[in-house]
């Protein structure tokens, strides 16, 4: 036993010293994460004020990917600007496009034909699944699970193939046009979507088998980055971040757009607002999106795909705010028209940017390792944050 005791003495000391951190609390350590850091999902820079390994303050430095999207809009015609919005949240380009097109349609006072609306819904929901898949893969990777990433990208590939067949592009699709669609659905779209949906349910179960009940996963996500409903509302969080805190708020239900009013689906919510709840909410959202797709392909109405819009768009002077439920949250477009062919001002409410506001609240008191999990759970895309 003497040997064991001896070891205990040594180890005890070492372990204690480690948990006290590097600086013994003598002063605070400023750790700079990013903009070149594997876990900041792009070019986010986080300045962390550390006490040992414990975060006592944080500051997000953004703007490394700023391209002046909103300013560009003021010098492009309405149609010309449409491809630019694809480049904001580049993992969910279709959703961006939908929001912009519908906003301009609202401004013009036209409406897309029913067929266009249904196809828009299908593609947007597929895009939601794809975006959540990217989130799940990278989030799991940040927490150290390598394999889900590849499974997720396997399924995402199927979705991107559908996009490619539909419009020729995979990532920045520019799938919709103001007033409806440019391309009609290709012949086997329903079949492709159906096949994907049929496989997909089992695939989500597969991801859950890897993570949901995993002790390590639970330990890394439960109780980490808790955001209460009040805080979430006060900070303007939307999307899964808000819903995981227990607030049942989804633009698709509250202000239905496209063809969502026709379909049955649930809005999953969490209870505690921690990283695990956000994970569960997004997993359930993928399932719900799949259900929406299945309902939508059952009856795609026939008819035209483009509403009555002219070649040159000249909306009457005025302003409009229209928002859609993008995968990351409420994506809003506030467009002011002065009656000319170019918008006077386009203001975009990016969900990632607003959700990032909650970061500091979530991260305080946690360890450096949790910072990574919290950045991951926010599901931010820096293209959208910086615009």
């Amino acid at each position, binding site marked *: *036993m*003497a040997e064991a*005791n*001896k*070891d*205990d*003495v*040594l*180890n*005890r*000391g*070492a372990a*204690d*010293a*480690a948990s*006290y951190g*590097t*600086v*013994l*609390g003598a002063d605070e350590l400023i750790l700079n994460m990013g903009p070149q850091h594997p876990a900041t999902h792009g070019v986010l820079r986080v300045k962390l004020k550390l006490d040992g390994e414990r975060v006592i303050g944080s500051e997000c430095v953004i703007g490394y990917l700023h391209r002046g999207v909103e300013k560009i809009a003021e010098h492009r015609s309405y149609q010309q600007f449409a491809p630019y919005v694809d480049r904001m949240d580049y993992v969910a380009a279709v959703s961006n496009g939908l929001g912009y097109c519908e906003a301009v349609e609202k401004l013009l006072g036209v409406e897309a034909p029913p067929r266009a609306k249904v196809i828009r819904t299908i593609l947007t929901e597929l895009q939601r699944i794809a975006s959540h898949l990217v989130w799940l893969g990278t989030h799991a990777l940040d927490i150290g699970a390598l394999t889900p990433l590849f499974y997720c990208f396997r399924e995402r590939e199927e979705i991107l193939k559908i996009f490619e067949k539909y419009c020729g592009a995979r990532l920045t699709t520019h799938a919709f046009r103001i007033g409806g669609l440019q391309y009609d659905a290709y012949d086997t779209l329903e079949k492709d979507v159906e096949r994907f949906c049929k496989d997909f349910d089992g695939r989500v179960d597969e991801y859950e088998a890897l993570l949901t009940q995993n002790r390590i996963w639970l330990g890394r996500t439960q109780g980490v980055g808790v955001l209460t409903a009040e805080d979430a509302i006060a900070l303007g969080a939307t999307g899964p971040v808000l819903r995981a805190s227990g607030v049942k708020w989804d633009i698709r239900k509250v202000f239905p757009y496209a063809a969502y009013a026709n379909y049955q689906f649930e809005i999953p919510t969490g209870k505690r607002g921690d990283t695990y709840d956000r994970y569960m909410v997004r997993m359930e959202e993928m399932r719900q999106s799949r259900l929406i797709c299945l309902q939508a392909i059952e009856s795609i109405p026939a008819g035209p795909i483009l509403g009555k819009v002219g070649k040159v768009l000249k909306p009457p002077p005025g302003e409009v705010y229209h928002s859609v439920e993008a995968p990351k949250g409420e994506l809003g477009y506030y467009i002011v028209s002065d009656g000319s062919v170019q918008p006077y001002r386009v203001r975009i409410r990016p969900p990632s940017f607003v959700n990032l506001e909650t970061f500091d609240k979530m991260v305080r008191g946690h360890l450096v390792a949790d910072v990574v999990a919290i950045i991951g759970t926010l599901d931010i895309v820096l293209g959208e944050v910086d615009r």
Partner: protein
Amino acid sequence: MHLLDKALFYVFAGVAVISAVLVVTRRNAVHSAIFLITALLATAGIFLQLQAEFLFIVQVILYAGGIMVLFVFVIMLVNLDVALRQVQFNRQKWVAGIVVLALAAQLGLVIWTAGRIPGAGPGPNAAASPAPAPQLQPNAEMVARSLFGPYVLPLEIASVLLLVAMIGAVVMAKRKV
């Protein structure tokens, strides 16, 4: 083999002494620690050469692998760049040096002359090495037998000492006492 044995001893002894000198002369505590590790490992080599295999491994695991890790750890925790620029030796260094050298001369003389005094024990000048020493093999078993045989009480006291030290270290290192 005899000669190789000798060569090994001198190599290990040389490494140990040189590293020991470097331990007390280096400015940077991390360097000191590295050289202390070297010195300890060289000593471990000497233990092996003395057929103390179990002690050799205890030295490697506990001294080099355990205690020194603790040292390196603490040095990194308290490593101040300021400390590097300060004067490394205290004011009494000359007095201390002279006293220590006197002590060294005294002890050296004792060891040197010990062999000449009849019956006072072995020394370098002892006429011949004593009768070939009995084997210390199998070493681990022998050490274990005497540790848990005649020396079981000291062993238990040592464990209590370690327990006390453990508690003491925890109390000391705690942020708020």
